[in-house]
């Protein structure tokens, strides 16, 4: 019964996972709150409101010159509402009502238009199209508005609005914004924002007339990994049809080439880092899929072809748990982990009791019988749930990505799965090394008849070991449900890979499984860029087939008398 007490250790890990997840979701929530607060805290003085009231009707004059003048005046008012109005005008959503000439912001809704007051965004009502008329704009007006908006936004008091505005400016650098950006840079207090402003200015200044300004701008671009910076440098280095540079200044060409080289070496470093991370994440998926098999195949010597289907059952358990608690998607995933462990574990014990028990010592027959079970389980899911893939929702704390810089970002779900796989691995290690069940499992694996002689109930140990391996497969299914489609064929996609991992790592060796999974994952991902996804998989398979010829017992062969005897 020591087994149960040490299961607490596993639950401690789970608790840690849950706590860390709650922490992350709290941080998100705080961000949202801070946005709201900043919007409310901007004080709206009475006088600015009056000015707004006075200026809005002037927007509907026909004369564009006058319109531009009033737009400029409008932008000067210290009232956040003017941004809304200018944006509406830019998007052609600013209309006036034909009846009383009052200006409104519209929002299309079915065949009608919802209208809002430009003063405070309050909803006025629902109107037909013919009762309202658009306030027209021309190119010059739009350009003015764009500049004014950019100016207002990059120097806005709220950092989030400043960041968003700058992001937009960086995608379409507009030379006329140069003074605005320079102004904003002197007032900027945030460091990363200041850096981006420098970059935005440099992107414009590359095309300036002054040579030294251009050179310093090129230098700045060379330090950035923004895709636009690279694009701009390539633009400078454009060649004509004869292959000679359009740019005449040799120093500029040299500086640009140097800067481009710098960017390229940085980008390749980041892309290698990214590939490494993709490899680790594929490796952790393989580890999760294979580790249960490593126990049943490695420790018990049982070929379980239904292992993939036990993973699939775990994924379906996730789906069913989500169906049962649709309002707590975030929590449902946590609940699904023990649920999947139990469901797949029970199925595993049933398989062991019902079929595998009668086939010990006949590995080829076990292989065929468990394959039959896998067909039964697949068809069971098809009949009971659906032949189509089922939707499993990704909770908010798993979506999104951790952005290091524009060239390197990691999605959260892959980070979580990496650590989750390691945690599952550690828990299994603990169970096998530190519990009495683990001791008995290892004893039975090493010498079955001697273990029986020492009073170990081998049959009972077999069932529990198989249940443990199957339960871990179920837990792997929960993780996989966040990465791939959940359907009846989910398990088949992983079974051969899992076997390869176990065989590559060496039987009866969990460390071997860990190393093998990570090696195969990383190799696969590094082959992918030049061989293609399918081809790299084929190469890895062929490599494995040849590897097994050389070292039939895997990377870390089992030591002892029983090895190689079968």
């Amino acid at each position, binding site marked *: 019964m020591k087994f149960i007490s040490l299961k607490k250790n596993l639950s401690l890990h789970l608790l840690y996972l849950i706590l860390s997840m709650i922490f992350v979701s709290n941080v998100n929530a705080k961000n949202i709150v801070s946005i709201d607060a900043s919007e409310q805290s901007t004080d709206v003085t009475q006088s600015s409101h009056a000015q707004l009231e006075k200026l809005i009707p002037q927007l509907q004059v026909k004369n564009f010159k006058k319109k531009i003048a009033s737009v400029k005046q409008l932008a000067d008012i210290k009232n956040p509402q003017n941004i809304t109005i200018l944006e509406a005008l830019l998007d052609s959503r600013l209309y006036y009502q034909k009846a009383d000439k009052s200006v409104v912001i519209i929002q299309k809704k079915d065949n009608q238009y919802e209208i809002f007051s430009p003063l405070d965004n309050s909803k006025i009502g629902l109107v037909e199209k013919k009762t309202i008329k658009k306030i027209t704009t021309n190119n010059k007006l739009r350009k003015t508005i764009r500049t004014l908006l950019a100016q207002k936004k990059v120097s806005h008091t709220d950092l989030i609005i400043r960041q968003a505005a700058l992001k937009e400016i960086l995608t379409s650098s507009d030379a006329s914004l140069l003074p605005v950006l320079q102004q904003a840079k002197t007032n900027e207090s945030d460091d990363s924002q200041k850096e981006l402003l420098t970059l935005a200015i440099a992107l414009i200044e590359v095309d300036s007339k002054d040579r030294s300004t251009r050179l310093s701008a090129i230098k700045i671009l060379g330090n950035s990994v923004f895709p636009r910076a690279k694009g701009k440098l390539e633009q400078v280095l454009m060649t004509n049809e004869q292959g000679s540079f359009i740019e005449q200044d040799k120093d500029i060409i040299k500086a640009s080439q140097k800067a481009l080289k710098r960017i390229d070496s940085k980008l390749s470093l980041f892309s290698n880092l990214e590939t490494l991370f993709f490899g680790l994440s594929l490796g952790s998926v393989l580890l999760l899929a294979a580790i249960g098999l490593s126990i049943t195949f490695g420790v018990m010597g049982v070929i379980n072809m239904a292992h993939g289907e036990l993973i699939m059952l775990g994924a379906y358990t996730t789906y069913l748990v989500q169906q049962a608690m649709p309002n707590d998607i975030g929590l449902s995933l946590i609940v699904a982990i023990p649920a999947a462990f139990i469901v797949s574990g029970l199925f595993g014990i049933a398989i062991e009791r019902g*079929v595998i028990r009668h086939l010990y010592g006949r590995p080829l027959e076990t292989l065929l019988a468990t394959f039959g079970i896998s067909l039964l389980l697949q068809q069971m899911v098809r009949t009971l749930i659906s032949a189509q893939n089922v939707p499993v929702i990704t909770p908010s704390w798993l979506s999104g990505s951790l952005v290091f810089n524009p060239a390197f970002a990691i999605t959260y779900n892959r980070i979580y799965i990496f650590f989750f796989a390691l945690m599952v691995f550690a828990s299994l290690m603990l169970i096998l090394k530190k519990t009495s069940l683990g001791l008995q499992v290892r004893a039975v694996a090493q010498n079955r008849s001697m273990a029986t002689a020492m009073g170990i109930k081998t049959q009972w140990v077999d069932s529990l070991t198989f249940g443990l391996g199957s339960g871990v497969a179920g837990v792997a299914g929960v993780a996989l449900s966040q990465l791939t489609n959940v359907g009846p064929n989910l398990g088949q996609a992983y079974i051969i890979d899992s076997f390869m991992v176990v065989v590559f790592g060496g039987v009866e060796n969990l460390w071997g499984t860990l190393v093998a999974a990570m090696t195969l994952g990383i190799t696969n991902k590094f082959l992918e860029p030049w061989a293609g996804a399918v081809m790299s998989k084929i190469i890895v398979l062929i490599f494995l087939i040849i590897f097994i010829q050389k070292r039939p017992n895997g990377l870390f062969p089992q030591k002892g008398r029983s090895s190689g005897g079968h």
Partner: protein
Amino acid sequence: MIINHFFPQFMHKDTGGKLLLSLLALITIIVVTFNFLVAESSAWHMPTYMVTLLGKYLCLALLAIALDLVWGYCGILSLGHAAFFALGGYAMGMYLMRQIGDRGVYGNPELPDFMVFLNWSELPWYWYGFESFAFTALMILLVPGLLAYVFGWMTFRSRVTGVYLSIMTQALTYALMLAFFRNEMGLGGNNGLTDFKDILGFSLQSDGTRIVIFSLSALALAMGYIASRFIVESKLGKTVVAIRDAELRTRFIGYKVENFKLWIFVFSAMLAGVAGALYVPQVGIINPGEFSPLNSIELAIWVAIGGRGTLFGAVIGALLVNYAKTYFTGALPEFWLFALGTLFIVSTLYLPKGIVGLFERFQNKTSENKLEEKTA
């Protein structure tokens, strides 16, 4: 026994085999008579689709014999035998593709349709020679044989056995499936090779050609059976059985175990290749799905159901399971996987010697009863 005059010496004790070959001859005569000689309007006429279906079964039975040879007699459970079958099929498919000539949708005399579709300008080198039937026939034997030779040479030499070997063969067929799914492979990618027109100048749609291919399948099955029986009755066969039962002991006596294994494995792969080559013109398509590991495992269950190590048991298993498959996928499509899954479990748990074993047990009981009656 008079019937022994029709069979070679080594088959005289093989009652099952004699029965099987006689039945095969009978079926061929019946099919030819009722499909070809009886007028189409007659109620006795056998529809051509049925002939094709039977022909398909016979090819699969030949494939089952190939697996039984390595599994039942040599103890190598190959879970990649469908790969050899598919390779033979692809070789035949390439020949049939080249026979289409300019009758394809794009009317290109040199390139098959899918290559025109992929904007290829010339035929890849490995397609050369497939316009000749003799070359194709050679390839049908050589390609699966060579793959089996290379794979077997590496595997048997390093003494990979048992489930490891099974998983390796499964990985092999899986890798081949992934490779054949690629368009860059130049073998039709996902869609495979299809839209065949004729073989050796005879239209594949005509009843006469189909009857001939059917008869050839029956002949191939019979020849394959006789050759396999000859091998297992020979000295080589006895050694192979010894390897199955006690590999180490055989090795210590002085036999080069890996050579025997390799020989039987390569022969079996060639047999599978022939089965595939006869299968393709009858079904009219070959695609990478044939490489799927599921097919190979299903094949193992035919052999297990029929009875391993008997050769005719494999034929019985292949015919029965495939007939059941045709029936269930038509009548109760949902039920088929349940039935197949149960078949796997039941046959391994309760029928270790398959249907043939069941029959023998029954026969032994009756003879024992007779013996008791006599002594009583």
